[in-house]
């Protein structure tokens, strides 16, 4: 059983990257509108995040240095500050959205308006970040978040024409009534969502929290190569099940309630209950991940003591940042802004943060001062360089696409 928990960090990181509230709705929307024709983008994103999460995890294990420490060290304080501001915009907006997402999931359970639930959820999140042990947080939320596997079961149960489904994915067969530029916008958005910087901030800092050393590199790799593909599978399952149920209706998906309907169709109340557990756990997990990432980034830029592996009073500034950020998130959500719209807007800022995050990781993973004998091999370097190119291209395309397609409408 302990072995299962050993990969909880990877699973929780993947949950935040692939099935947080923004992805839950976007994947469902994409499935409903485009079928699985964007499936390969998810696969591309999974491979990309695996490459860089492995690198940042290896750096954290061997040298004890987490990602944002490295970003400032290699790029300097000016570029580091630019990255900090951009990635804060993404991570903070996502944190706001996740707390809203937990409230939305709880609304589906209680039918209490989500705005009323926000302060309660924010308090729970802050309590977890302040008091809960890191391992307890990742094990509980990671494992319960895996309940979303019920979407794969539902897809199976719906009995779609597998040949046709996979054919449309392989051939990138986009439904006729959608334009290629909208397709391209969602492709860039999905890719950006799969590789958001807070995933590597969280994963590498989590590795330090878990006190990884060079001996734990195999465990770290298990986390990466089990966690992220699982996240990708969950993504595809959600897209697939909404494609089967909403596709023929020619209907769009933009609320969490709609996302769960295919499971109800396929598996009834039991399946829906499991999906609801998955919604709450995944959004809560993503809230903890993004909240901690804000604290990690700001603390690692300034050199403050951070982390849950020390007593809160030893990392006082870190916990102060977390508390402030939770209060800000609550205030933003109490203005009744749509949490899902908040995540979609943050895609823009990913464009700046992505290249400035992954380039330093790639360089430092080659630096013998940090890595000793564990520098990148040729495979890691080749994949890393190729993906850096893809990331820069996606970053350049993000803003024009967003404007031209009016955010994918």
């Amino acid at each position: 059983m302990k072995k299962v928990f050993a990969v909880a960090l990877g699973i929780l990181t993947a949950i935040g990257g692939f099935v947080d509230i923004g992805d839950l709705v976007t994947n469902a929307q994409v499935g409903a509108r485009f079928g699985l024709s964007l499936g390969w983008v998810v696969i591309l994103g999974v491979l990309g995040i695996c490459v860089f999460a492995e690198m940042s995890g290896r750096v954290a294990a061997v040298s004890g240095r987490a990602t944002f420490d490295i970003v400032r060290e290699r790029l300097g304080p000016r570029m580091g500050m630019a990255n900090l501001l951009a990635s804060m915009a993404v991570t903070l907006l996502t944190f706001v959205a996740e707390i809203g997402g937990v409230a939305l999931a709880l609304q589906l359970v209680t039918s209490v308006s989500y705005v009323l639930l926000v302060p309660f959820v924010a308090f729970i999140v802050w309590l977890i970040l302040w008091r809960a042990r890191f391992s307890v947080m990742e094990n509980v939320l990671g494992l319960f978040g895996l309940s979303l596997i019920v979407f794969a079961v539902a897809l199976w149960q719906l009995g779609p024409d597998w040949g046709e489904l996979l054919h449309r994915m392989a051939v990138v067969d986009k439904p006729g009534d959608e334009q290629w530029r909208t397709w391209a916008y969602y492709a860039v958005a999905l890719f950006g969502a799969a590789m958001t910087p807070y995933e590597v901030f969280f994963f590498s800092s989590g590795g330090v929290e878990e006190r990884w050393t060079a001996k734990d590199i195999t465990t770290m790799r298990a986390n990466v190569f089990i966690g992220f593909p699982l996240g990708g599978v969950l993504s595809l399952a959600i897209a697939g099940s909404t494609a089967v149920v909403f596709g023929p209706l020619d209907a769009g998906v933009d609320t969490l309630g709609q996302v769960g309907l295919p499971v109800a169709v396929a598996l009834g109340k039991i399946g829906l209950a499991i999906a609801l557990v998955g919604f709450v756990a995944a959004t809560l997990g993503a809230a903890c991940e993004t909240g901690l990432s804000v604290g990690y980034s700001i603390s690692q830029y300034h050199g403050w003591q951070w982390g849950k592996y020390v007593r809160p009073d030893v990392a006082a500034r870190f916990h102060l940042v977390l508390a402030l950020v939770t209060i800000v998130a609550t205030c933003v959500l109490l203005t009744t802004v749509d949490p899902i719209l908040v995540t979609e807007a943050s895609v823009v800022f990913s464009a700046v943060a992505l290249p400035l995050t992954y380039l330093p990781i790639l360089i430092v993973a080659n630096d013998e001062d940090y890595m000793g004998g564990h520098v990148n091999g040729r495979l890691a370097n080749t994949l890393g360089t190729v993906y850096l190119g893809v990331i820069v291209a996606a970053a350049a395309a993000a803003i024009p696409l967003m404007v031209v397609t009016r955010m994918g409408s």
Partner: protein
Amino acid sequence: MTSDMTRQNRLTGTLDAVLHLLDRQVVDVHGRLVCKVDDLELVQTESGDLGVTALLSGPAALVPRLADGRLGRRLHDHWRRLGEPHLDHDDPYRIDLALVAHLGSGVELTVPREGVLVRQGQRGHRLNDLLQMTVQGPDGVPVGRVLDVRLEPRPQANGEVLWVTGLVIGRGRPGSYLGYDRRPDMGPWLVARIVRFLHRHSSYVALEHVQDLSWSGGVMRVDPGRMETLERA
């Protein structure tokens, strides 16, 4: 907690100030995080030798580094005005080099972190002043900027000092070599090629061949005949 694979202490050999010291994490003797190295204290002797004597940290050290040239000076002025009533507002926190035990991926101290950051009054100059200078040829034509500073330890009676042996001059910003000047075959191959191509005009100048170092004017003069190609570490 830090599992440094390389226990080699960089302070025992030659090192680069920007690449190996600046913006590194400072860790205390118990492994707890202290601060970042925001700048370095530079002291000039009467004979013209330059030496790094202390690590500097805090907003007073970081703010001037956030922008170059005029914008940087304006930012620094704003910072000073924000703390006018405070006597030592513009005084950075200082950690003497004698307190540094080991330099690997981070800077490890010999003491616990309680009270280690002290404002001790401004002495000498800062590395950032050197990095902001324009490097001119003999006819006053700008040749480039200081990208990095080569240091060498020479233990002496009164405290640790890292002496400046020479400067890496080139176009671009300090630290933009990203470490490829020291290790040209550090991977990945494409990134290394691009960085080295962007820095193809860079060279190394020994400190004794630097003339007319003017702190107030922000210029130094270098004889192009004395510029050498960069050596590998």
